[in-house]
């Protein structure tokens, strides 16, 4: 941990390369949804710059396009993005207790699935500059991708968009596999999570529930059960 902030920023940049590229591709398709809601390229890019949430923005744009009111949009954002509450709680434990308020306010602006993923998997306490390095590439990728999505619409061939869109899932996999390899409990949890998620997504009974709500319910239920059954006496903070 004796490394300088600049070194951590450089490491964050490296982790940010796949995030920025993946975001660019996903945001491109998001831009098309924004255009359908009557947003200009600037307004859509501003939305992406401020909100940084794929599901939250998709849902927001489609609600707005359907003529929803402000309150309805607010409630849906709360539901679609509630998982970030859990991630921020986790991150609060990853920061040194003496980490200043400005760092906390800035990190809070960009707790996305991927930036959270790389931040939480950094060794030891999190140096905020590592997260800033990742954001420095993720943010322009996300905002510019949205902007170009509105401007250029459907010019990209579908095969390229399809291929790029799994990049983000590849990153998720690279984050949860190493601890799953090390710990039998995490391995079992990952398999149970996938099986339960598959059931929730495919059984028609659950069709009325949004995918954001499903994610929250499954995350809370499975993690809570694991915490009760397999409490960890010493959460690792090595290196």
């Amino acid at each position, binding site marked *: 941990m004796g490394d300088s902030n600049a070194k951590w920023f450089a490491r964050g940049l*490296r982790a940010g390369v*796949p995030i920025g590229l993946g975001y660019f591709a996903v945001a491109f398709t998001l831009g098309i949804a924004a255009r359908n809601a*009557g*947003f200009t390229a600037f*307004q859509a890019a501003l*939305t992406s710059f*401020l909100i940084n949430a794929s599901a*939250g923005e998709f849902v927001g744009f489609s609600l707005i*396009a359907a*003529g929803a*009111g*402000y309150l309805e949009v607010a409630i849906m*954002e709360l539901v679609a*993005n*509630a998982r970030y*509450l*859990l*991630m*921020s709680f*986790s991150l*609060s*434990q990853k*920061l040194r*207790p003496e980490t200043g308020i400005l760092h906390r306010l800035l*990190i*809070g*602006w960009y*707790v996305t699935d991927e930036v*959270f993923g790389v931040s939480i998997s950094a060794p030891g306490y999190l140096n905020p500059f590592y997260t800033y390095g990742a954001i420095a590439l993720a943010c322009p990728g996300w905002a510019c991708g949205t902007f170009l999505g509105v401007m250029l619409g459907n010019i990209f061939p*579908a*095969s*390229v968009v*399809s*291929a*790029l*869109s*799994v*990049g983000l*899932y*590849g*990153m*998720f*996999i*690279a*984050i949860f*596999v190493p601890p*799953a*390899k090390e710990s039998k409990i995490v391995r079992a*949890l990952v398999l149970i999570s*996938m099986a339960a998620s598959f059931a929730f*997504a495919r059984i028609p009974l659950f069709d009325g529930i949004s995918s954001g709500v499903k994610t929250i319910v*499954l*995350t809370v239920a*499975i*993690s809570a059960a694991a*915490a*009760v059954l*397999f*409490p*960890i006496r010493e959460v690792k903070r090595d290196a």
Partner: protein
Amino acid sequence: MRSGNVYIYIAVMAIVTYLIRVLPLTLVRREIKNVYIRSFLYYVPYVTLAVMTFPSIMDATGSQWSGLAALLVGLALAWRGASLFKVAVACCATVYLLELIIL
């Protein structure tokens, strides 16, 4: 059709989303000592990433099979210690090449 002002919509979405993210980070300043809460927070990221990956990865692509193949390739490479970037690129390449053949 849209019924309100675009900038108010953006502000509403931004404020709600920011509060969700920033409140835990600013209000929880100490380390949580309770072993159950600590364990819960330790498990959350892995569970939530696994839930979000499958089966969504199969719906993100042109064909379910290319998405499933990308999942398997990603799992195998990550298990063997490949970096985040390599795993992500390999998943994209798998989908692109497979869809050249099957679509």
